[in-house]
Structures are given as C-alpha cells and as structure tokens.
C-alpha cells in the first residue's frame, strides 16, 4: 500500500496499441477529494488513461495505483472504488434505459428494492424518466451520454470518472452534471473529468492536467497555468502625456516584456497583470503622465490550451496582433 493521500497515482504509465503509442510515460498524482480536469486535444491519450484507471485496459508498462491498489495486480480491489461514465456510451442495443440502469444499480451493490428508488431518482434528476422504456439503439446521442452520467450518479463511487461527459448534451444537463460532480465531492469522492470544454474545466475543476501526444503538457490550478504563459496577460492603459515619459517609465519595469504604444495607449504583454498594472500606473503617475483608463485581460483557458499543446500557433497569432499595433502602415 502506498500513502493514501493520493486517490490516483500514475507512475511511468505507457500504453501502446500495436504501433500506436497512446500514452507515453505519464506521471501524475490526483489527490483524494479533488475535482481534477484532464484536458488535451483528441487522441492525446485521455480516454486511454481513464480506461486503464478503471482496469479496462492493462498498462503496457508502468502502473497506476487507485487508493494505493495497483491496477495490474489488484484489479478486483480497484474496481470496487471506481465508477466511470464512458466517452462512447456502451450498452446492449436491445436493452431499455430502465433495465440498463436497474441492472447497473444491482451490480454496484444496491438491494433490489433500493435499486428501484435510486434509479428512479437519478433518472428524474437527469430528465431520463420519460425515456425509460426506450431501447438503447433508439436513444439520441445526448440521452446516451445521460445514461452514462446516471450510472455514476447511482453508483456514487469513491473515484468517479467522467470521460467528456458534456459533449453532445444540453445546457440543463450540463448544469445538472456539475451539481452531481460537486455533490459527489461533498460526499468525499474524488472526481476526474476529461473535457474539451474550457468553460466547464474552469468552472468545476480545481486542478488541471493538459495532455499532449500521450504526455503531460502541464499541471496545476487554472490560475497557475494561466500565469505560466509568458506575456499571457494583456494590460492596456490609456494616458495623456508624452510618449517618451511613458517609454522611460515602462523600461524601468523588467517584467514588462513586449509592449506597444499607439494612440495614447500602452498595451503591455506580461504575467500577473493585476499586480503589474498597479505598478505601471504608479510609475506613470509619478512621471507626470495622467492615467485615464486601465484594462487587464487574463488569458482564457483556450489560450492556456493552445500554449501547452500548440504554442507556435498562439505565438503566430500574437505576432500578427503586435505587428498590426506597432506598424499599421506596414501592412
């Protein structure tokens, strides 16, 4: 047994499918009781990692420990803790929604009577009750996703895994899911959410990992990741005064990397914009420049995602913006 503060500990995890390396040496720790987001472009190895945590796949090398139990050697134990909502809903096509969930409830440990009420509660909560008699093949993509969410909601596992749960689902269901996730966390569960929805990641996840081509691209809280983009924040200050004074003032601040001066506006690209903005303002004021407007823009999670998965693309975009600002006539 390893120390139990880690709900999931991924150690040198490699997974190959034939010649395809889906995950290439992943090391990651997910703490007990947190809501952890797994981001990454399609094919970056998120699902493969999650399915291996759930003991569906076996690691090619390395190991994963779930509450200290090894997925390679103690699969039966691991499965007692884990519940997973698959990215691709999986069920027999002739079974009805109600049958599927009732059976699921029985398998995850409910008695026959408890199962009925637990299933009904979950179905009503996700607006599935009206579809209860439909066979799986008759369900829309969104309803199938809800079925997956309902499974985890019924199971209330110690480690709940959602693999792109809100792809294809409506706004109401998204909010219902986020409530479910927070509720699970309240009850002490650890939650892992793979997602491509930056809004969702920012809204519910306490820590994030960004995977890229089977490796860990970045890890941290949303705030930390944003701060790690060099020049990610944009501070824009409108002023009245001499351009030379402004330039002199800004050059005294080494943390300001790139900046642009145009039309009595200073646009600076830097980190921790909120703090730096104040410093710039006080410098300008003491130099006799009158500050009229301040705007601080932090990077979106989209920017973070681009930066850690395809930094070049982002830089190119920024250069375009810079050129346009500095030398509009050159275009």
């Amino acid at each position, binding site marked *: 047994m390893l120390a139990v503060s880690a709900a999931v500990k991924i150690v040198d995890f490699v997974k190959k499918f034939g010649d395809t390396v889906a995950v290439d040496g992943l090391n990651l720790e997910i703490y007990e009781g947190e809501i952890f987001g797994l981001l990454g472009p399609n094919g970056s190895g998120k699902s493969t990692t999650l399915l291996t945590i759930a003991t569906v796949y076996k690691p090619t090398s390395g190991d994963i420990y779930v509450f200290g139990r090894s997925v390679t050697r103690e699969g039966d134990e691991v499965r007692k803790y884990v*519940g997973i909502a698959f990215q691709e809903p*999986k*069920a027999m096509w002739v079974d009805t929604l109600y049958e599927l969930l009732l059976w699921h409830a029985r*398998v995850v440990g409910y008695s026959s009577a408890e199962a009925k009420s637990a299933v009904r509660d979950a179905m009503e909560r996700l607006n599935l009750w009206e579809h209860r008699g439909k066979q799986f093949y008759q369900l829309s993509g969104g309803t199938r996703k809800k079925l997956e969410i309902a499974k985890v909601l019924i199971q209330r596992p110690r480690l709940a895994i959602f693999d792109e749960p809100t792809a294809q689902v409506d706004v109401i269901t998204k909010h219902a899911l986020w409530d479910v996730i927070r509720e699970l966390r309240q009850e002490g569960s650890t939650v892992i959410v793979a997602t491509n929805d930056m809004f969702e990641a920012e809204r519910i996840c306490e820590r994030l990992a960004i995977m890229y081509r089977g490796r860990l691209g970045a890890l941290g809280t949303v705030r930390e990741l944003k701060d790690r983009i060099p020049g990610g924040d944009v501070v824009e200050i409108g002023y009245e005064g001499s351009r030379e004074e402004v330039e002199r003032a800004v050059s005294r601040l080494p943390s300001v990397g790139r900046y642009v001066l145009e039309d009595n506006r200073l646009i600076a690209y830097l980190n921790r914009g909120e703090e730096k903005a104040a410093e710039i303002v006080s410098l300008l004021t003491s130099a006799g420049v009158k500050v009229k407007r301040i705007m601080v823009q932090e990077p979106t999670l989209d920017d973070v995602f681009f930066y850690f998965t395809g930094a070049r693309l982002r830089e190119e975009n920024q250069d375009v913006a810079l050129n346009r600002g500095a030398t509009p006539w050159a275009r």
Partner: protein
Amino acid sequence: MKDFIKACFLVAYRDLRRFWKFKHWLAAQLAMNLADVVIFALVLNNMVNRDYIPDYVKFMSTGVLAIATFASAFSIGREVGGEMRREVHHYLLSLPAPRAALAAGRFIGGALRGLVYQLAFIVLNLLVVGVPGPVQALAIAYTSLLFSLSMSALAIAVVSSTRDFNLQSTFRALIYYTLFFFSNVFYPKELISLRFPGPLAAVVTHAPISRAAEVYRWGFGYYQSLDPMALPEVTLWAIILLAVAALLYTRNLSRQ
C-alpha cells in the same frame, strides 16, 4: 465468495432476460426445430428402413431436443460477439466484479437459455415418446445442464477470439454446422457407418450433440439401454469445453 456468486447471478440474469427480446429469432428457431420433426419424421417415416429406425418420429423428436438445446445455448455467442465489436465489454470490465464471475455468469446465462428453450421440446417428447422414470429423468437433467453449459461456453469462446464481424459469423457458423451435421440427430450411427465407412461414424458417435441425443433417446424410452460411456463423455466434454472457454474468454476480454 458471496460477491462472486452475486455477480455471476446478475450477469447470467442479464443474458437470460435479453433472450426473450429476440422474438423473431425465437420464432424462426422454434419453427425450424419443429419443422425438422415434422418434415423428417412424417415424410421419411415410411421411407426409411425400419430395421435401423423403428420409429422416425420418436427418433427425430428426441434428436431435435438435443439440437434445440444446442442452438439456444449457442445463441449467446451472437450477442457476446456483438458486445465485443461495440466495446460493450469495456463496461463489463469496469464493473465491481471479478473477471472469473463475468465469464462464469455468461456461461450460465447461455446455458439457462438452452434449458428454458428446451422445455417446449421436453413437453413434446413427453407427449410423443414417453415419460421417463426417476433415474432417466435425473440423467436427462444432468445431461441438459452440462450440455447446454458446454455449448454456451464454446460459443462465447469462439466469437470472443476476434472483433471482426465477418470472422465472428464465419467461426460461429462453422462450429455450429460442424456440430450439427457430425451428429446422430438425423441418422443413427448404423446408417452413417453404412454410408461412410471408416472413422467418421466413430467421430459422430462421440460428438457432444450425439451423446446428448443418445441420453435423451434412452431417457424418454425410445432406446432400451444406454451406452455406459454416454454420461461420462457428456461430463468429459463439459469439463474440457468449460475449461478451454473460461481461459479463452477471460483472456480475450482483457486482451487490451
């Protein structure tokens, strides 16, 4: 142990419950099995040599009992194959259940299909052939249980060895028809050895369906005696097929 049994039961229940949903398959199967009795028996009854088959109706209805049990237990293979193709087995693998319980539950689920479906043909045999004594009844029950377990396990092991739909169907059909034709359901071994001299008659005699049919023929009173090797061979087939299938299925399930 309690968890294991519970998981087995639930997995088996899942497969048995679904059996009734394939109404068209069931109707077609029933029609085919009954047609076998009617066509072969009524049409051929007066054409075949009475020295070999004294009563073709009785001969066929006991034989069809074996075929019907086989076909319905074997039908589980189609769904297990479909599950593999659609990766529904990922769901099963993620459930809080031991892997061996998944396999055992599946085998039992298929076997139960065989046993439930066979009831109609048991009734037919009671009406057409005769009523077994207590020892015979016990032998019929024992054979039915082991035979349907073996056929269910065989079907599951065969289809799970590939994800390719065409290969799955081919394997399934190949095994199905091999077992079907290399049996004494339609002709007794005396007739077969007349037509095909050599080892074929012996092979047919020891095939699992033939052995089951033989027990049924004796059990319902069509034959007066039973080859002493029949029941041991039914048992042996079950042990071999179950062991091999359990190994193959659990390996194929968690190949990735």
